[in-house]
């Protein structure tokens, strides 16, 4: 690798795990109940902390397959049983939430965890929350713009004065609990909207690129846009992260055998409502290869791919969406263990030897 492609973001490398609250199965292959799913996620977060993972994120969803509608409560249970791991949303659908409430909940989590809370704000790629809370999807742009602006104000600390069209105005309002020290890290998750990239820079949020299909390198212009936009708005440098799905097992073969049938099942299900094409063994091989977006394989395979893409995207944070729906709980726990004990040290080694 030549100098220009080595990783010099100016930020420490950090590694996270994200879950959407996927329902897994027990040893007999029976799908767990929602309640058991929620309890299992606490165990997953505790294990993640014990194997040295830096971040554990829960994505807000409101569906039968992803019953994690109140992820912050689950995060606080994890906080009570862990010491080091940072805990956050991945993502909070801010467009259909109240920024004041989001701040209150995560400021509370930050207090409980002694400064380990993070928030990733999303406009809403998963849209089930809009009808649930009475929002019109066609308003998502104005909702997200106003609410991300208000959230940036809240992070600066009280008193808050804000006026907009999507919630009641605030005048010299005290919003509690106050932060103890620095504001918790707040990111904007972006799937492909350049406006969201510019918005993140304008409000001073970190950037997470959610890459769920296709070549990760095609997101490089988005990293460049973010870095240029930070400069344009005279903001200090801020970190870029990458979120993608995957699964780690002892060998490539085992990881593929475990992941593929569940992935196929999930995409088949989603294709009915979203119009996605059903993956073929060939398209799957492409996605898990060097030019695809899915990280499935042995620790070596996955580590090499993470290192390569962090470099291409000028990113210092990687978040693996683990635990595809329907996987056995035991395979999910093994994935967490291997990610913490093998994958992360390998990525650090690969990237550390270059800079």
């Amino acid at each position: 690798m030549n100098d220009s492609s080595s990783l010099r973001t100016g930020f420490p490398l950090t590694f996270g795990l994200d879950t959407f609250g996927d329902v897994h199965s027990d040893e007999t292959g029976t799908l767990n109940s929602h309640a058991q799913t929620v309890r299992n996620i606490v165990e997953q977060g505790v294990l993640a902390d014990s194997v040295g993972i830096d971040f554990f994120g829960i994505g807000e969803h409101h569906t039968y397959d992803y019953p994690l509608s109140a992820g912050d409560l689950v995060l606080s249970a994890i906080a009570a049983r862990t010491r080091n791991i940072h805990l956050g949303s991945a993502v909070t659908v801010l467009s259909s939430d109240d920024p004041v409430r989001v701040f209150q909940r995560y400021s509370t989590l930050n207090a409980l965890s002694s400064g380990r809370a993070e928030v990733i704000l999303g406009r809403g790629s998963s849209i089930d929350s809009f009808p649930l809370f009475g929002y019109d999807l066609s308003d998502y742009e104005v909702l997200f713009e106003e609410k991300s602006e208000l959230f940036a104000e809240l992070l600066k600390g009280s008193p808050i004065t804000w006026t907009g069209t999507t919630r009641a105005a605030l005048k010299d309002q005290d919003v509690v609990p106050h932060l103890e020290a620095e504001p918790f890290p707040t990111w904007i998750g972006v799937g492909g909207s350049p406006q969201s990239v510019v918005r993140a820079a304008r409000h001073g949020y970190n950037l997470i690129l959610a890459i769920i299909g296709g070549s990760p390198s095609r997101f490089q212009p988005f990293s460049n846009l973010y870095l240029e936009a930070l400069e344009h708005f005279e903001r200090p440098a801020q970190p870029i992260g990458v979120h993608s799905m995957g699964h780690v097992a002892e060998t490539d073969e085992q990881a593929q055998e475990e992941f593929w049938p569940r992935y196929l099942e999930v995409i088949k299900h989603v294709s009915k409502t979203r119009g996605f094409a059903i993956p073929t063994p060939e398209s799957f091989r492409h996605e898990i290869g060097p030019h695809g977006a899915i990280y499935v394989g042995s620790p070596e395979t996955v580590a090499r791919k993470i290192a390569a893409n962090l470099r291409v995207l000028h990113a210092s944070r990687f978040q693996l969406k683990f635990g595809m729906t329907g996987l056995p709980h035991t395979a999910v726990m093994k994935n967490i263990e291997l990610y913490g004990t093998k994958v992360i040290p390998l990525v650090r080694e690969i990237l550390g030897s270059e800079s």
Partner: protein
Amino acid sequence: MTSPTSTTTLPRIGILGAGHVGPAIGRVAIEAGYPVSIAGSGDPAKIALITQILVPGAKADWPAQVAAEADIVILAIPLHKFRTFDPSLVAGKVVVDLMNYWAPIDGTQQLFEDPRYGSSEIIQQHLSGARVVKSFNHAGYHELEADRRPAGSPDRLALGVAGDDREAVELVAALVENIGYDAVLLDSLREGRILEPGGPVFGASLNKEQFAQVLTAKAAA
């Protein structure tokens, strides 16, 4: 992917929409040698940075200006904004509709809930002065750049180009070919329904032969 011809001979592409899709199309059109203008929802200053980084070489301008100067208008606005789109902007123009109607994702929109018509036919009805061509909608904008191949490559993919106006279809087919895809021409917007979400072509990454097989199977069904 074809070697760019002199930019003065190629039609000007005017992209309305600087969201997910607009800049992706703009970039590959520029690389194919086309002059490109792009507009967001209003003041070009708001998309200056996006244009500079994501579509280098394109001219950012006001929507009316972009449409007026274009030989081919690419309509890449969020579909829910189409209700309020001013048809006079594109009167007489060749308009590429690459939008899709996915009720589960975009929410139900009454305008597109008419089972008698495909979404591009409804777009054509509202843009009665324009010559609407349906294309690019069934390929992921994510992959548009990476999947380009020179003409004759065995792994070159095909894109459907459907429209009621043959001349307009051929103009857009040339754009498709110059960008790096085989164009499969469909004789009407009605036939273009086969390109819609849920259909056999949508998201399927087919080459020309596979695409032809789908059409044959459809005709036989």
